[in-house]
């Protein structure tokens, strides 16, 4: 119902083909790990799904609808794309209120999500003084603001301390167990091995593997060796 379906997606920047005929589906109720080396097209794919980048060919649908046709995007999809989309002089609570205003989300949600990501105590501080981990948490708060059925997260563990990573793992698990679709782009394989139900492994803009993590085996270094084999340059 709220699955994310990417079909035959292709995107070229100048002479570089960032995404090549990419096809995969992320199911509701599952955490889908979106894995690939740097420059493999993960972020570009997420940006196409979110309507920020226009594909040359193919479709990206959320619950059967492209992002820019969603009736209220922030209530359907939450995204964390970079840990730095903040005005340094704006307070955390104000950052979220700007987004809540635009999406018509009641103000009470702002304080709810600040509590949910553990930033209640920093709500009135300017983002300038935030650590990378705090910025990640604020980005997550923004993604959760509209209580969306779909979450797209690009390297959300980046900058989090071990306690933060454990907390994030629990959060993502919980969100998926509530029936939401969770996509996590990452190259921290050990983390994905602990969180994801399904994995999509991409390299050079193409899908190399898509399926349940159990098919690869989450034991020991199974994911890492599969990843390295699947993404190795092919002469």
């Amino acid at each position, binding site marked *: 119902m709220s699955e994310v379906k990417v079909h035959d997606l292709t995107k070229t920047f100048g002479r570089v083909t960032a995404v090549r005929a990419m096809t995969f589906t992320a199911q509701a109720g599952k955490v889908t790990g979106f894995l690939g080396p740097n420059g493999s097209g993960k972020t570009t794919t997420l940006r196409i799904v979110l309507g*920020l980048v*226009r594909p040359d060919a193919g479709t990206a649908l959320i619950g059967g609808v492209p992002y820019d046709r969603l009736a209220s*995007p922030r209530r359907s999809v939450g995204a964390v794309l970079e840990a730095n989309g*903040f*005005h340094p002089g704006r307070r955390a609570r104000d950052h979220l209120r700007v987004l809540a*205003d635009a*999406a018509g989300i009641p103000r009470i949600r702002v304080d709810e999500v600040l509590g949910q990501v553990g930033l209640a105590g920093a709500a009135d501080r300017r983002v300038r003084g935030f650590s990378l981990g705090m910025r990640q948490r604020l980005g997550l708060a923004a993604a959760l603001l509209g209580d969306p059925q779909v979450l797209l997260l690009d390297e959300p563990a980046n900058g989090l301390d071990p306690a933060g990573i454990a907390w994030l793992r629990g959060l993502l698990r919980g969100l998926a167990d509530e029936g939401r679709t969770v996509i996590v782009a990452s190259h921290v394989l050990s983390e994905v091995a602990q969180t994801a139900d399904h994995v999509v492994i991409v390299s050079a803009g193409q899908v190399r593997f898509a399926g349940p993590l159990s098919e690869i085996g989450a034991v020991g270094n199974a994911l890492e060796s599969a990843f390295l084999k699947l993404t190795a340059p092919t002469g």
Partner: protein
Amino acid sequence: MLPLIRSEWRKLSTVRGPWLLLAAGPLLVVAGITGLVQSGGDVHDPAVQSKALAHVALAALFTLIFGIFAVAGEYRHGTVTDTFLSSPGRGRVVTAKLAVYAAVGAAAGLVSSAVALAVTAAWWSAKGGSYQLSAADSWRTLGGGVAVNIAFAAIGVGIGALVRNLAVAIAAALAWIALVEGIAGQLVGSGLARWLPFSASQAAGRADAGGASQLLPQWGGALALAGYAVVFAVAAMVTTLRRDVT
């Protein structure tokens, strides 16, 4: 549309930068009028009074830069991603920005006008001059000045959306005003030069423009400026809709 306008307003009201920038406008008016009187401006000459009030249009330099921040500032800080996630209809985002920035530009122009009137009155009474500029011409000068502040804010929004790189956009706008328009004016001849944006803004901000000066009549300047504002707004809209946000 209303939620986006509210969001744009909150973006402005929750940071300090834009207000410090806009505060420079009235300060420039105070300094400019003071300089005019101190450098020997004749306080009995209505033309000098008009020139004093016309500083309101000069203060629009700051609403221009203010406008550039609307879109280019969002690219600078990366907040543009979240803005377009909230509203994939980017045309509506640009429209909301134009509305809010034009309204704030108007407010800045009104503050500059009030300051211009007060400072002019103070200097004229200090120097024992009689205020001879007709009320109608005073209001037309100030009204034109406010209009220039609005138009420059809108043009700034357009420049920022076209260029996106904040530093380049501001440098280009300032270079145009300080240097390039003068050179371009010499190349195209004074007949056409009067229609260039900064020259048009000077005409729009003077009730006695036209006359002996090198400027268009006030209504002509205002019309030309409105044309530039529309062109930049449309260009901002078209480019913003198409571009990838990477």
